[in-house]
């Protein structure tokens, strides 16, 4: 039997007691949870995790490695929140639990180191770029496909794009309708600069002036997902300092960043930052959301290729953006094919594929098999993390299917029409 634990003050400070009661234990969230579908274990289901977190908070279960393991295995994909009829705020629960875990649980050194690396490397584009040098070298020597068989390296897109400095300001072509700022994202800008370029082209062509502040860093999501509140708030403070110019919208191409930027108000609660954080959050728009509000003209020649759309969790579940990206694909003239389990997490989930490689791999392959079965030539994905994960999984299955951001798909259609 378990030892008796005192009600856990750190956890209680994170999640108000009344939150737990919102879960009525109906289980309707089970089929929306990727980890439950793969493992079949209640402790790896939303209902089970809520149960565990509550038992821990209320002192009926101590915080053991076993509890931490089940919480760590949660992707944070929020499929459960979307499915829950009772309005359970799972996100606040799990994010609170992650902070409380870091405050009260001693991880084994290897794991702690890995987690440190994630928050010390990925949020810094310069460090990430240096880290990628060996891969760049291998690619140059023609060893790209070979090194992509290594863990971690498999996640790096092939070919690896060149580093490009973004212009600080891109004027609108023709009359200016909007002035927007671009949030570049730390991983996105290094690994997917072409998405940014595609977005800027479409925007400028449609009367938008684009401001790209040079000094911008990480939004803070990577740290927050690991329960590192202080570091997350530091990132938030820096972002608030950089994005001060008045703009109509703050555009994001990485769903993970967008979702986190929108939750700035929650993360700065009780600090002097909150007012500004809330205002910034109100301006945030996913690139697909903004573009589909612009009433764009369709390209002269429809794209005509078979495209499957994968719902990135941080778009569909966290921000409720489901139709807009699809509308862009329709506008591009893509032939949309039905993708089974389109809104089931692909296993990327921020740094999940690095911290939980086994389950991430299973989920990635599940996604890749569904994509293969859909008959698509292109998969459209609105988040860089998912793109890396899905590319790697498809490569593992030996499939040659392009993975593009919906904005890129549209850009391709426009360019093919004018070429």
């Amino acid at each position, binding site marked *: *039997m378990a030892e008796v634990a005192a009600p856990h003050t750190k956890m209680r400070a994170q999640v108000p007691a009344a939150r737990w*009661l919102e879960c*009525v*234990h109906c*289980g309707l969230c089970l089929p929306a949870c990727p980890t439950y579908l793969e493992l079949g274990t*209640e402790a790896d289901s939303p209902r089970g995790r809520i149960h*565990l977190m509550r038992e821990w908070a209320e002192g009926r279960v101590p915080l053991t490695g*076993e509890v931490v393991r089940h919480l760590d295995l949660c992707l944070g994909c929020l499929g459960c929140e979307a499915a829950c*009829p*009772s309005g359970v705020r799972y996100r606040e629960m799990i994010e609170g639990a992650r902070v409380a875990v870091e405050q009260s649980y001693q991880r084994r050194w290897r794991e702690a180191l890995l987690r440190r690396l994630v928050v010390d490397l990925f949020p810094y584009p310069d460090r990430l770029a240096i880290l990628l040098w060996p891969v760049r070298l291998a690619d140059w020597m023609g060893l790209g496909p070979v090194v992509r068989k290594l863990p971690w390296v498999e996640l790096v897109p092939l070919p690896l794009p060149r580093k490009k400095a973004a212009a600080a300001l891109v004027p609108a072509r023709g009359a200016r309708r909007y002035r927007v700022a671009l949030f570049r994202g730390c991983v996105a800008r290094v690994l997917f600069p072409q998405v940014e370029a595609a977005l800027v082209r479409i925007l400028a062509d449609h009367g938008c002036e684009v401001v790209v502040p040079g000094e911008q860093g990480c939004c803070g999501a990577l740290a927050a997902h690991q329960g590192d509140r202080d570091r997350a708030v530091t990132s938030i403070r820096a972002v608030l300092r950089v994005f001060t110019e008045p703009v109509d919208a703050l555009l994001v191409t990485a769903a993970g960043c967008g979702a986190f930027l929108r939750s700035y108000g929650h993360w700065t609660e009780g600090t002097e930052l909150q007012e500004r954080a809330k205002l910034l959050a109100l301006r945030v728009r996913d690139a697909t959301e903004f573009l589909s509000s612009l009433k764009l003209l369709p390209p002269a020649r429809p794209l005509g290729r078979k495209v499957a759309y994968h719902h990135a969790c941080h778009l569909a579940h966290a921000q409720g953006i489901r139709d807009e990206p699809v509308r862009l694909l329709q506008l591009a003239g893509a032939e949309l094919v039905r993708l089974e389990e389109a809104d089931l997490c692909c296993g990327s989930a921020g740094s999940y594929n690095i911290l939980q490689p086994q389950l991430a791999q299973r989920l990635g392959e599940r996604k890749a098999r569904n994509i293969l079965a859909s008959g698509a030539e292109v998969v459209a994905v609105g988040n860089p993390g998912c793109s890396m994960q899905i590319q790697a999984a498809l490569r593992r299955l030996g499939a040659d299917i392009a993975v593009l951001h919906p904005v890129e798909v549209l850009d391709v259609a426009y360019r093919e029409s004018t070429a």
Partner: protein
Amino acid sequence: MQWAHLRESLRTVVGSEGLIEPYEARKVYECDGYTLERAVPELVVLPASTAEMCAVVRLLHRAGVPFVPRGAGTGLSGGCLPLEAPVMIGTSRMRRILEIDSLNRRVMVEAGVANLEVTRAVTEFGLHYAPDPSSQAACSIGGNIAENSGGPHTLKYGVTTNHVLGLELVLPDGEAVWLGGWVDDVPGYDLRGFVIGSEGTCGIVTRAILRLLRNPEAWQTILAVFPSVAAATSAVSAVIAAGVVPAALELMDRLIVQAVEQAYHFGFPADAGAVLIAEVDGHSAAVQAEAEAVKKLCLDAGATEIRSAATERERAELWKSRKRAFGAVGRLAPNYCTQDGVVPRTCLPEILQRIVAIAERYRLRVGNVFHAGDGNIHPILLFDERDPQEVRRVLEAGREILAACVELGGSITGEHGVGVEKIAEMPLLFTPQDLIVMQALRQVFDPEQRSNPGKMFPSPGGCVEVARPRRQVPV
């Protein structure tokens, strides 16, 4: 056999991923959708196939260890509470759709497949699996069979037993047998029918052959808003009296309407006393006529607003208010307890009055949502589990409501089963002789009563007052 030895033997059968040992990971199995009572299993085993299931059950048989089956744990009567049974056997890893025979409209699935998955797998053939409990996205076919589950469309299409052609049962000694098969009307006793609704007391169902229905050529969903529940129930009676058999006929009272409105903003009027959802289906010509008839009868009964849906999207939107009603109630109070009873349809107004009176007497808030067409009521009692007095009042009020159902010629459960929740009410419905006969029948399958012990039947010689041995009620 020693416990440690048994555990190792089980591990060799199901592997480490299929065996759940740590206390924390078992703790989450301490209850299903009925959270008033809890018990933590000593071990949870998740076999991945019939073969593994047989091996697991055989080991338990040799060791003389009782077990409790579990599907998705959405049950509302504590059916998979591990009472007097240290080992829980789950079907959550048996989720394969094995064979689709679209021409003959049959499908073979493993017991852990979720109800809605079946329909999803056969949509491309224009087919569906008819029983549609509100929990259909999550609940398993095995659980549906154990509870003989129904749903809104039960009125016209029947409950689970009408749609299961055959099932594979792993007997408590570890032997797998097929009852029924690919065809209807297997001669001899209907053992398949006996097992359906037996709540896991005959063994574990591992596979089933299900009947599929062709999607109706046309349908129309009608939602009518009434000023009072009485007006809505009289519409129900009128519809049935007129000879229309709707595919579904569902009623929600004021409290529930307010809850779903608050959660999903359907635009129901704030003073709506009840909402009735009716669905008619069949050939297009007939559907049109029936839908018009239903609308007229509703208006005659005093409906203040009528909406209808004829596209899949609109239909889903109308149904959403009903299908998500239970969950939406979760927003009204910290906890709720869903009762489940049946009365003859004509007694609906009467039972509703009685429920209101009982709730008032116990100072409880109650909402009603029910399958009106077949008189299956679901009073939902709201409470706060942190208030032990209130919890006790909920339990007592629930019992009185069930007694009232029986008095009106009905039953103590329409579809949620007896589980542990209603053991004490069984004698209201059955004589001691009835219960003895039932248990004798169960012994044919489970002579040692090792499959889901402590469920369905009051303890031997017991009556309503018999203390429940190992049930821990947190009051």
